[in-house]
């Protein structure tokens, strides 16, 4: 038996004007980050982080490049979803809320692109 009202079923929308998409995306990116995050801290703890040539060598390794890229994208996405909820909960003025949400989106996309660009630059030896 479905608990959804007939009109809700037709529109496919609840009072949030959004379905379970946000909730689900947060969980899926969280599961990805469990693995990518653990991989990152394990590798980072064994890396002589102050040595530039060794850090470059680490990032340039093809598997590391791919996993770092996935980490940066998943983290930026998960962070965007989380910050969005925080803004929606705590910023009450409609105009400021809209501006904050847009700035957060721009900021997260910018960080993701900058990170991936840097990884590619190292990985492709540019």
């Amino acid at each position, binding site marked *: 038996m479905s608990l959804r009202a007939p009109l809700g079923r037709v529109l496919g929308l609840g009072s949030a004007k959004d379905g379970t998409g946000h909730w689900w995306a947060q969980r899926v990116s969280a599961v990805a980050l*469990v693995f990518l995050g*653990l991989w990152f801290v394990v590798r980072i703890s064994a890396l002589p982080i102050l040595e530039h040539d060794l850090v470059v060598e680490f990032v340039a390794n093809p598997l590391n490049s791919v996993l770092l890229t996935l980490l940066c994208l998943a983290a*930026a996405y998960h962070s965007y979803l989380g910050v969005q909820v925080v803004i929606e909960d705590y910023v009450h003025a409609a105009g400021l809320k809209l501006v904050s949400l847009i700035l957060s989106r721009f900021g997260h996309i910018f960080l993701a692109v*900058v990170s991936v660009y840097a990884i590619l630059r190292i990985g492709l030896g540019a």
Partner: protein
Amino acid sequence: MTLSILHRGTGVAMSIGLIVLAAWLVYAATGPAEYARFAALMSTLVGRLLLIGWSFAFFYHLANGIRHLVWDTGRGFEKRQANASAWFVLIVATAVTAGFWTVLL
């Protein structure tokens, strides 16, 4: 209850930490001299305290996030279970953070 707001707090802290992660990659991509300057900045007392804070935020958010994923399956909601898992998360996050920095230093 305290852990709930801590989950948000550590999440927002790591959102700011993403800037440092991006900066780390950018300075590594730029060159040895620039990277050395970034490494020196992060090696200062303030830099180290921030890194320790971000590492705790990571381990806490990871452990409590898994707790949330278990809750999503409908399990662990009994008051006794929730209290036990709260302490478990706090102890694991603190212990793993300490262990992580023992390996690093």
